[in-house]
């Protein structure tokens, strides 16, 4: 069976060049970077090189990069780290209603611990408004956390404008910091911490064609954080634990390749997505796009198919070799319709019928065409079963044209 992976937002295959780069660190180069001897120094040097590459991907300095186990941990360290460190300055956090489940979970946990959390709306476009951020700012706001690009619909948030706003506040003496979750954005758009004027920025390697289990937090020089995983001098006391050397090396190489190839990758997936969406429009009726189509990551297309539920469609597609997702990969499996699609103002039915198609750098035209062959049939199969569809058809038949 032909297999087409259209779920690059959930995770990406590891680039062959990345595997090559890490392999020596899975075999002969196995030292603990904390060791003083040859083996240790060899690993230490490799971690330092990787740190420079990751820093360079986002326009940061190497010592502003903290390696850790992934995007979720980066978000934990950023949000909990700032809040715990600066609790004396205030206990108010501003975020959006479409953050990744990790940020949502962390903010919910803060909410249960004497913190006040303001969750801003994103409207039908799936984009937060800078005016709303401005209006929500309070003298006791210590952290604003707004993702750079959403993981379900791909919408890009106005982080640079929010950054400018926060800078103003800070210039006026407020103790306030800006975090952005750039886990999805980093593979799709140029990210520069100075342009964004952010203080903290989360990255995860497995969205950039590197393995799962490693990520990084950018921490602007001078920003103080309460470390979360403590005990050990690693990462300049900001994150304890023996460095995951092979993964860190892989992340470094993936960051280097992303920096060099980002524009070409973005152009490639944008072109294929156009082909895909044009094909869907020609072949399937009764669907809506989710999220502002102009302000989106180039490889993501999120569509709600009326009258059908997403998971059934997903499994139908999967049985024909097409891998997609419904809701966020992490929260799928729960009964609830996607909270992100709900936040766009969609009703439950549309929210349950949403499917994310996410293309990757190695996606081909042939794969797009295969999905365009399989998808309309799968939608049709499920609609034929759907009492909602039957009812709508009957109603339509009775309505004079």
């Amino acid at each position, binding site marked *: 069976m032909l297999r087409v992976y259209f779920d690059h937002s959930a995770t990406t295959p590891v680039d062959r060049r990345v595997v090559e780069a890490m392999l020596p660190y899975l075999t002969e180069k196995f030292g603990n970077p904390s060791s003083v001897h040859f083996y240790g120094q060899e690993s230490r040097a490799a971690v330092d090189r990787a740190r420079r590459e990751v820093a360079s991907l986002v326009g940061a300095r190497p010592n502003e990069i903290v390696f850790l186990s992934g995007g979720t941990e980066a978000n934990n360290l950023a949000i909990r780290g700032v809040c715990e460190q600066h609790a004396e300055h205030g206990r108010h956090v501003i975020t959006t209603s479409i953050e990744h489940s990790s940020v949502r979970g962390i903010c919910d946990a803060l909410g249960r611990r004497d913190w006040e959390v303001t969750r801003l709306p994103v409207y039908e476009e799936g984009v937060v408004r800078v005016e709303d951020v401005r209006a929500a700012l309070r003298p006791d706001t210590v952290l604003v956390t707004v993702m750079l690009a959403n993981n379900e619909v791909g919408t890009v948030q106005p982080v640079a404008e929010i950054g400018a706003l926060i800078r103003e506040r800070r210039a006026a003496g407020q103790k306030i910091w800006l975090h952005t979750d750039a886990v999805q954005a980093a593979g799709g758009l140029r990210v520069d911490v100075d342009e964004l004027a952010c203080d903290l920025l989360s990255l995860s390697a497995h969205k950039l064609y590197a393995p799962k289990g490693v990520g990084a937090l950018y921490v602007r020089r001078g920003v103080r954080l309460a470390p979360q995983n403590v005990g050990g001098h690693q990462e300049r006391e900001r994150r304890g634990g023996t460095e995951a050397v092979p993964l860190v090396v892989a992340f470094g190489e993936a960051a280097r390749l992303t920096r060099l190839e980002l524009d070409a990758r973005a152009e490639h997936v944008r072109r294929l997505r156009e082909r895909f969406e044009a094909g869907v429009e020609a072949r399937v009726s009764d669907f809506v796009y989710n999220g502002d189509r102009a302000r989106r990551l180039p490889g993501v297309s999120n569509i709600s198919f009326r009258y059908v539920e997403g*998971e059934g469609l997903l499994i*139908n597609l999967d049985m024909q070799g097409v891998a997609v997702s419904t809701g966020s990969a992490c929260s799928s499996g729960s*009964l609830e319709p996607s909270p992100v699609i709900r936040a766009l103002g969609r009703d439950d*039915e549309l929210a349950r019928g949403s499917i994310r198609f996410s293309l990757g750098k190695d996606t081909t035209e042939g794969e797009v065409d295969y999905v365009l062959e399989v998808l309309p049939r799968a939608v049709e199969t499920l609609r034929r*079963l759907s*009492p909602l569809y039957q009812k709508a058809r009957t109603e339509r038949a009775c309505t004079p044209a």
Partner: protein
Amino acid sequence: MAYSDTLKDHLANPRNAGTLADADAEAEQSNPVCGDRLRLSLRLGSGRIEAARFLAYGCPPTLACGSALAGMLEGMTLEEAARVTRERVTEAVGGLPARKRHAASLAIETLRAALESLTRGAF
């Protein structure tokens, strides 16, 4: 997660999908928590269920249970149909993950409702 192959096959190749224009019994039930919905139409002949059709909206187990139930009902007497259990439906779809057991319950509820509509009706 992990759905059985049988369950997935019901999803890709649903058996007995649709409604019966000349149904003797019909019922539609929904799960108020998740919004899942199942509709069952039955036609009788010589004391047996001659034809059974279903429509379903919702998560894969709901669709598969509808398909499996409609399939097994054809040829049953009403007494046999009344004795169909949640377990039997679950088995017919190759098992269900713990969190999805309610799909088989919805199938049984809909069946009961359809059979009740019969006792209340012309039969």
